[in-house]
């Protein structure tokens, strides 16, 4: 027996270093739970960018307004899928709505989600689109026409008064929408921030960090989608709009990076019991994703790139050098920055979700996340779930953001976003 015991002891499982509680050797929340806050963050960020147009009257963003909303909708519809696929019993997911446990932050998911989808996004889109649906419904044949007509919900009144009401209502909803978007993502941050058992997660700054990084990623996504859409449609890019988005991205990124830096500064200075293992985690298991990808590639580099580019737009710079950076250079820099930021925020979600499970709650060791290629929680599934919202968005763009209004449709009185870009 002794030999047997010695053998077992010698076979310390290879993916574990130091001591972890036996049940912690498996990482419970997989890459799918990395995607969930990532996608939800994109939703919130895209909506907040759109709200700049309606509430804060940043008119230069008008060409991208509808794209932002549709992006937000596509990603919102894709957001619950990773959660659903991760569940041990996906067929029981309805329970979270039927018997929501009020002390659980996760129980609020269904309600926050439903609120955001129905009361904010769909309503906002409906008021914004109703006139177009009525018009397109009149001239479009086949199922598409039916679809547009159904989407009007039978309200075909296009009088001046009715359209004015649409506009006003849309504004009101945006005002409700901003706190809702913040709630949507702040609550995702709270899911992690409320876990006192985990010293990396249990942190009052967590919801704020999640909201800020959500805004960053959402703005970056809209910038990215806008440029991709223009490129696919061979349309010229509206530089004023692009510069505005870049400004928003820079500002959001600066604040987000500052708050996340503050979080780590505070941890290191306070140096509580857990700091030793968290430091080891940051420079060890998470070095590539935290230091390299999230901090340097995902924050520092885009900040420098965007910072210098935006500096070139200031009167000071123009005065000195007689010219701003050429639009073609700016476009490339913006595009590169948006991609870097998108990757950086994805890395941030990884570092929180996976990183938080790599160290033991005994603070004495690490385990390893062994990700499979296939399987319902593997790489393949993750890629599919990440691509899905883009596919959905492509469909939405085809249906609701046509290059030209449906055949025979009268041009709308005021130029509409996509058309302005054309």
């Amino acid at each position, binding site marked *: *027996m002794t030999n047997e015991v010695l053998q077992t002891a010698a076979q310390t499982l290879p993916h574990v270093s130091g001591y972890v509680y036996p049940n912690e050797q498996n990482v419970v929340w997989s890459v799918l739970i990395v995607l969930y806050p990532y996608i939800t963050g994109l939703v919130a960020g895209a909506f907040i960018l759109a709200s700049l147009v309606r509430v804060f009257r940043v008119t230069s963003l008008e060409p991208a307004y509808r794209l932002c909303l549709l992006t937000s909708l596509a990603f919102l519809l894709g957001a619950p899928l990773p959660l659903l696929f991760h569940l041990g019993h996906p067929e029981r997911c309805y329970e979270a*709505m*039927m018997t929501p446990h009020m002390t659980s932050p996760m129980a609020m998911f269904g309600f926050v989600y439903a609120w955001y989808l*129905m009361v904010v996004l769909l*309503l906002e889109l409906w008021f914004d689109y*109703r006139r177009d649906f009525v018009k397109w419904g009149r001239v479009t044949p086949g199922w598409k026409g039916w679809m547009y007509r159904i989407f009007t919900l*039978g*309200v075909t009144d296009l009088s001046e008064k009715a359209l004015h*009401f649409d506009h006003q209502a849309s504004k009101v909803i945006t005002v409700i929408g901003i706190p809702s978007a913040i709630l949507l993502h702040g609550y995702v941050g709270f899911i992690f921030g409320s876990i006192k058992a985990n010293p990396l997660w249990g942190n009052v700054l967590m919801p704020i960090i999640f909201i800020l990084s959500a805004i960053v990623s959402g703005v970056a996504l809209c910038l990215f989608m806008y440029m991709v859409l223009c490129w696919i449609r061979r349309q010229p890019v509206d530089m004023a709009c692009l510069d505005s988005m870049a400004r928003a991205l820079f500002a959001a990124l600066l604040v987000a990076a500052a708050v996340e830096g503050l979080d780590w500064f505070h941890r290191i200075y306070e140096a509580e019991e857990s700091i030793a293992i968290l430091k080891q985690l940051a420079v060890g298991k998470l070095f590539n994703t935290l230091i390299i990808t999230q901090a340097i590639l995902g924050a520092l580099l885009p900040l420098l790139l965007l910072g210098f580019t935006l500096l070139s737009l200031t009167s000071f710079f123009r005065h000195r050098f007689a010219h701003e950076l050429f639009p073609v250079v700016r476009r490339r820099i913006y595009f590169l920055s948006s991609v870097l930021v998108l990757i950086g925020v994805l890395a941030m979600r990884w570092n929180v979700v996976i990183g938080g499970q790599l160290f033991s709650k005994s603070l004495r060791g690490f385990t390893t996340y062994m990700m499979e290629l296939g399987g319902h929680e593997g790489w393949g599934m993750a890629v599919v779930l990440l691509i899905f919202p883009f596919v959905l968005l492509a469909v939405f763009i085809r249906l609701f953001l046509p290059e030209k209004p449906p055949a025979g449709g009268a041009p709308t009185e005021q130029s509409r976003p996509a058309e302005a870009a054309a």
Partner: protein
Amino acid sequence: MKVPPQIVRLLIVTVVLVGSYFVAKSLLTPPTFGELGWYRAAALEELAQHKLTYAGKQECEVCHDDIWQMFHAGKHQTLSCEGCHGPAMRHVDDPENEHLLKPGSDQCLRCHQQNPSRPDWYTQIDPEEHLEGECIECHIPHNPTEMPEEEEASSEQ
């Protein structure tokens, strides 16, 4: 003042959605949910029905009272029969066909091997320094301070 048609339609949609939510809620909430707290009270009874694997020491006395008496006179009285002999519920249910383990010396060493992590009060031996051979040659497991009689020791084997 006339209510805008948009609002009327949206109200209808809202009422339908909220209404169907409450209908679904009343249909899909399990019967005993909330009787004791925010959970299915019936779960208590379900979990209590799980089958036994370990019968418990008192079951052994029913048939093996001879060993029981010797056992309770000795130093091993705090032990459970099933600790060394393994789970006994199947044996209790079917004593003729289901038999228990007769543990060997490795089972003794599992507890009594010298180990610096073990408390000082506890009897430990170094198998290399201790006398050679099987433990039961010198100890009766059910009363380990007694020496086995020749007869019994041979019948054990």
